[in-house]
């Protein structure tokens, strides 16, 4: 367990050494700069736009971290030949995969937590310093705690993308892994179209295949509740629970697949 924790922490430390956390500075500058400039451009929609910008930036920055670090997690160890010394230690290959995954998820968690704090800080400052009309124009309170719900689902989505990136990292080169992961991310946004494929094709076999792919490929669209939160629309606890459960089950499935592939890999 201790070894697993140290591998996970090492992934986090490595991302800090690789200056991954610099994206937080960029995020803060983006939000503060936007909050200053938007007043002149948005006809009173500053708060809404800062919320949209904050949530989208959290999602996009997180996606890049998940993909670009995730694809190198295993590949780097193999390329540097450090995998031999690691696997010589009393850990299984499955443990190694899990530890690497936990380390990157920890990096994402720290990132998202800091981004959430920065977003609330900017919104708080705008509420305090801005005209009352800014708040009046909002569908939801400026410091709406439900923003955390949206960020929470972004985190689960990114954890899923990380698992996918790690899976590809166990058997493919970084460039191909990045292409596959981004490809699956895009497919995941349009997955719902596959479910109703029978409405556009006559072939029952094609419709059946599309439906099978719908269930097999990750369905990422349900994790996006940003617009609902920004507009103060209701989101049921059941929906959030089911979506998080789906994310966890899918992550376990992908990690298991990654572990199986990695366990069968020959490093000679």
């Amino acid at each position, binding site marked *: 367990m201790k070894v697993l924790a140290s591998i996970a922490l090492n992934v986090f430390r490595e991302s800090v050494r690789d200056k991954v956390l610099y994206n937080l500075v960029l995020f803060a500058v983006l939000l503060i700069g936007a909050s200053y400039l938007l007043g002149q451009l948005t006809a009173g929609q500053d708060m809404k736009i800062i919320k949209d*910008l904050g949530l989208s930036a959290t999602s996009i920055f997180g996606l890049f971290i998940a993909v670009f670090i995730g694809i190198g997690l295993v590949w780097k160890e193999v390329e540097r030949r450090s995998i031999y010394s690691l696997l010589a230690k009393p850990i299984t290959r499955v443990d190694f995969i899990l530890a690497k995954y936990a380390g990157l998820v920890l990096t994402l968690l720290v990132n998202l937590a800091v981004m959430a704090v920065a977003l609330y800080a900017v919104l708080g400052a705008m509420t305090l310093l801005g005209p009352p*009309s800014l708040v009046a124009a909002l569908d939801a309170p400026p410091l709406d705690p439900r923003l955390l719900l949206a960020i929470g689902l972004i985190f689960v989505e990114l954890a899923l993308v990380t698992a996918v990136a790690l899976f590809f990292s166990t058997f493919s080169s970084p460039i191909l892994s990045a292409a596959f992961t981004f490809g699956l991310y895009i497919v995941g946004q349009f997955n719902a179209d596959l479910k109703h494929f029978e409405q556009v094709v006559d072939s029952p076999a094609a419709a059946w295949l599309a439906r099978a792919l719908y269930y097999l490929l990750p369905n990422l669209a349900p994790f996006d509740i940003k617009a609902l939160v920004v507009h103060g629309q209701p989101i049921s606890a059941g929906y959030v629970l089911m979506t998080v459960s789906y994310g966890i089950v899918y992550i376990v499935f992908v990690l298991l697949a990654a572990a199986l592939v990695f366990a069968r890999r020959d490093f000679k």
Partner: protein
Amino acid sequence: MKQNGLLVAVVFVLLAGAAVGVEVVRDHVYGQPRPAESVLYVRSGEFLKRASLANASLLADVYWIRTIQYYGGTRRSRALGKRYDLLYPLLDIVTALDPKFTIAYRFGAVFLAEKYPGGPGRPDLSIALLEKGMRADPLKWQYEQDLGFVYYWWLHDYRKAAESFRRGGNVPGAPWWMRSLAAVTYGKGGDRQTSRLLWLQLYQTADNEWLRNNAQLRLAQLDALDQIDQLERIVAEWSRRTGAPPASWQTLVRAGWLRGEPRDPAGTPYVLDPRTGRVNVLPDSKLYPLPTEPGAWIPPPPS
């Protein structure tokens, strides 16, 4: 080593300064590059929504900012033959990307219907946009209020206006005065006092500065119409007594009928047509053009 660093820093500053200097000279000699004409390359909101990959709301904000800049820039432009061709397509994209973007529907309702040169003068597009908003959010009574406004103010269809106010009043959570508006519009459609009541309600309930400013302008225009009525009565009385309208305001001022040259609520002097005795705001006034009322005299726009 330290000297090298200093030298690099000096060279860096000098080069940056030289780049700025060359650009200033070029702009001075050859003129500033002309900004590109407004073009909307992608007009399908549905396509943009899918292409945005779960960031449709943020993309809607980008298009919203573009809409504001486009409308504001065109409205302020003094170019002859300026057009608002992109206003509706932009708003259509914003509301396709974010169907709950309330202000986009309300902004569109007001400014799409606005008469040229303040807007494209397309109340039909205002109605289309508001109906889209109602489909997206049937519980927004404000859309019915705005729809009633378009029928009342721009199309002078008081029956449809009253129906919109009534439907809006029946939406759960709608304020009580929506039903009053319906009743007043049924009973006294076209009456200036009713118009004042409508704009006052919009002014007091607007959650956006653009809408509030627009309502304030309309209220000032209604005040101007009242003042014009009063001035035309004075001019008519002068004509009755002297047999001809006064040549200018100075005639009435010298005769002690007016204390000074009358000014509209925006501070611009009223214009008097000495042939007909009709009064209106000057084309330079912020209140120009006044809303059309039966028989109103509209001075020609500035050439």
